[in-house]
């Protein structure tokens, strides 16, 4: 199987109403480049359906303290975007789980031909929160299109009906839609917002692709609450926090991912 079809295959098995599939996240370079690569393998072996690899940036606008701290640490380890491309290539040849890159637009802009480079390493999609379709004159979206590299659209609870339609129209090749749970940055939270079902229903009316819900998911009960409202649950900061406090992160992350990924 080429890497290009892994994501499609993973998504095709996900049905609305089922227990949500799990999408996990690492910051490449946290706690070190090698260890973050290992963590991706651990996640893949223990039930993650999709994994997001974040390329650390100095000024991560959409990230809360956990991921921001992890990025600062990764940069102090000297991790560069080229290291991240290499890590992606290595991982995509080792594991079957579809992999995405997450980063900020400045790094993409600075790396000439990033879309092609990312695509060549087996990356199956990009999440770049600080550029939105329809708001920019840049060739970023067309470059990704010509590489068949989807840019995952993001929506928020305050995205209007008109904009939901517009975003859906602007991203017809999107494999799924990333629904931000709340107004805010990334970070583990105790509770999911109450208006979530109504919001996710509005998203469903505008998008035919699976809905992935992220920002704030930290426990199994959150994922259970999403059943029927979202097809994918995204866990980021909670894992970073776990790694930070753990003397044996691989084992603890394995247990955590196993628990979250099974009904």
């Amino acid at each position, binding site marked *: 199987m080429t890497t290009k079809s892994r994501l499609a295959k993973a998504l095709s098995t996900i049905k609305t109403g089922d227990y949500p599939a799990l999408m996990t996240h690492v910051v490449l370079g946290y706690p070190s480049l090698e260890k973050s690569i290992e963590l991706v393998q651990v996640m893949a072996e223990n039930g993650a359906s999709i994994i997001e690899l974040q390329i650390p940036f*100095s000024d991560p*606008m959409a990230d809360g303290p956990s991921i921001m701290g992890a990025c600062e640490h990764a940069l102090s380890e000297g991790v560069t975007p080229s290291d991240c491309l290499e890590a992606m290539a290595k991982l995509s040849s080792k594991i079957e789980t579809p992999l995405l890159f997450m980063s900020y637009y400045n790094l993409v802009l600075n790396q000439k031909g990033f879309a092609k480079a990312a695509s060549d390493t087996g990356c199956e999609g990009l999440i770049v929160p*600080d550029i939105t379709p329809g*708001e*920019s004159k840049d060739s970023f979206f067309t470059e990704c299109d010509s590489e068949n590299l989807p840019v995952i659209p993001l929506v928020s609870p305050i995205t*209007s009906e008109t904009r939901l339609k517009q975003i859906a129209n602007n991203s017809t090749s999107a494999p799924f839609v990333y629904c931000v749970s709340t107004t805010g940055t990334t970070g583990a939270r105790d509770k999911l917002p109450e208006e979530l079902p109504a919001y996710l229903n509005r998203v469903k009316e505008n998008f035919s692709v699976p809905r992935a819900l992220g920002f704030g998911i930290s426990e199994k009960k959150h994922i259970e609450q999403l059943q029927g409202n979202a097809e994918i649950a995204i866990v980021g900061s909670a894992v970073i926090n776990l790694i930070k406090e753990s003397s044996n992160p691989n084992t603890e992350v394995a247990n955590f991912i196993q628990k979250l990924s099974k009904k």
Partner: protein
Amino acid sequence: MAESKKYQPDQYGYYGEYGGRYAPEVLIPALEELEECFESAKKDPEFIKELKEAQKNYIGRPTPLCYLENLSDKLGGAKIYLKNEGLAHTGAHKINHCVGQILLAKRMGKKRIVAETGAGQHGLATSSVCARYGMDCHVYMGARDADRQRPNVFWMETLGAEVIPVHHGGKRLKDAVNAALKDWITNVRDSHYLLGSCLGPHPFPEINRYFQKVVGEEIKSQLVEQQRTLPDYVIACVGGGSNAIGAFNEFLEEESVQLIGVEAGGQGPEVGQHAARFQGGRVGVVEGYKSYWLQDEHGQVQDTVSISAGLDYAGIGPLHAFLHDQGRVKYTSATDKEVLEAVKTLAENEGILSALESAHGLVEAIRLAPTLSKDKTIVVNLSGRGEKDLFIFGRHLSSSSFREFIERYAEEFKESDN
């Protein structure tokens, strides 16, 4: 004249290739709401009336345009005039866009204000308008800046604002903008981000230009009144770029007027020792806009160095990037050392205390004046007054008596608390 098409943004908020709206989806509705509010306010006579009234009676406009006779004579060349924004309420030009934006916030029904500040002048002006218009005020300030501009922290708190020190990154203005953006992302439903310079995602650069352009309009009419000419040069310091845009805007289409922006040369030209974006910066997208950014080869934003917190910033407003590439504005820089010298020169010759930021413009005027004939006129925008820099001047300029005083006062302070 001020509404020239050539230098206006396109429908996406780009000046040439710079600017734009690189913001997360969650901020797009707020940016659209702000843009609509701004466009309708500009056409509303009631809004304009309220703005004019506040400019006159609250800010104290027009601020004076003062001929620096002693300094001009001493340098023996062009005549130097000073546009004294230091005499505006709260001590700097920042109050111009703060008054404007607080009226927009009121119009949108927002009750909570979030802001960033570098030198503390924008934070001080924001705290003041929040107190006056009954808004809840939260100011982010790099921890390093909060220390070096401590008097402004004290006054902001006295005015009722919450000042939140930012410990991330270089603990400077860039990190404060980042933190303020995150607060806005979180509280966007009820908050207005009162951004403090001509930067950030569209429409912020345009909004602040609109409220700052009064400075250049006054320069023009005051100079015509005083000597019946246009200036030959207008000079301003450039952090994010609001005071410079304010001073330049009226003259953008007057090709005879040469415009010079002065960046922070810090400790010197070596990488990482200054904040001169046009000397080593590269096009990037950070904090919501595309412009020149000081960054490493991979695109990580670099730390900056400047004695002035207000210019110690790795990015520069997008209109400046455009004006730079167009060759309409020339950009130079002044080092920390030159700046301290210029503060002293202005104080001794003219009895005016300049903020460290504004003194960057003075350095350029002092360099330029002797090379020009006596019939030439230079206007320097003195964006702020120097009181906030007491502790920095105290360390660099004064005799040991200031240090002795601080030490003795600290002792007494400690004792009086027990």
